[in-house]
């Protein structure tokens, strides 16, 4: 239960941080952040691989380890 709350708080914190920063710097949006990140192929490939693997992990591969 505590883990669920912790991950939930992280998600809320991301939203709140984005809103606070955007309030002070209107150009600082998450879309603008990803635009900059994806300009660099090293970062772009890393982000895409991590995104793809999340799908693989939950839909195709082994999601939960049996002895965990």
């Amino acid at each position: 239960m505590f883990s669920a709350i912790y991950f939930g708080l992280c998600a809320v914190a991301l939203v709140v941080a984005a809103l606070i920063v955007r309030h002070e710097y209107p150009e600082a949006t998450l879309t603008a952040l990803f635009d900059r990140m994806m300009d660099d192929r090293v970062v772009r490939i890393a982000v895409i691989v991590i995104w793809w693997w999340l799908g693989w992990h939950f839909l195709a591969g082994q999601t939960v380890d049996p002895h965990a």
Partner: protein
Amino acid sequence: MSTNGSTHDDDAVERATRPTLGELAWIGIVVAIGIVQVVRLQWFDALVFAAAALAIIADSTGRLPSSSRVRRVTGRALLIGGVMAAAAVTLLPRHTPAMMVAMLAIGAAVLIVVWPGTTRTAPWPHGLRLLSWWCAAIVIAGCLWELAQFVRGRVAPDIPAPALSDLLNPLLGTPIGHLVFAVVWVTAGAFLVRRAVRR
């Protein structure tokens, strides 16, 4: 996912031979996730991250051909690709060979689309830098907790230590959970591809 194959610019660009601090951080993240897959004995997953790490290390050190060309993807092509991907990952049962094939096809298609082109941009605006630090700090806090749960699960299996996978897996076992995850995952992918090919 189809593209029209056109490019913004065919000029080759000179690539730096030393990675930036940001690139080093992302290389470290990919390597760290790969190590966790080794500990999990998930050899295919580990292989994926090893290949990704090798590729981005080679790219960051100027060992891969580099150009400013970018594959252009129309909104329509992205929409069609996204709908096809969503249909596949929504309708196919989890953990089946068909789902594995679909996931591999989606990954290969996305990689082909986003691979071309690299640019070194001007220094980031202060606001964007601030946002990136906040996001990084929060995501790292989440990842450290995930890692702690993973380690606790290995060291003391009797003590409950649910990682994100343990929490989400039962939800994904339901049709609505599967549907929601698939739609969110494909939407996130479409967003990333859109950001990657917009340059």
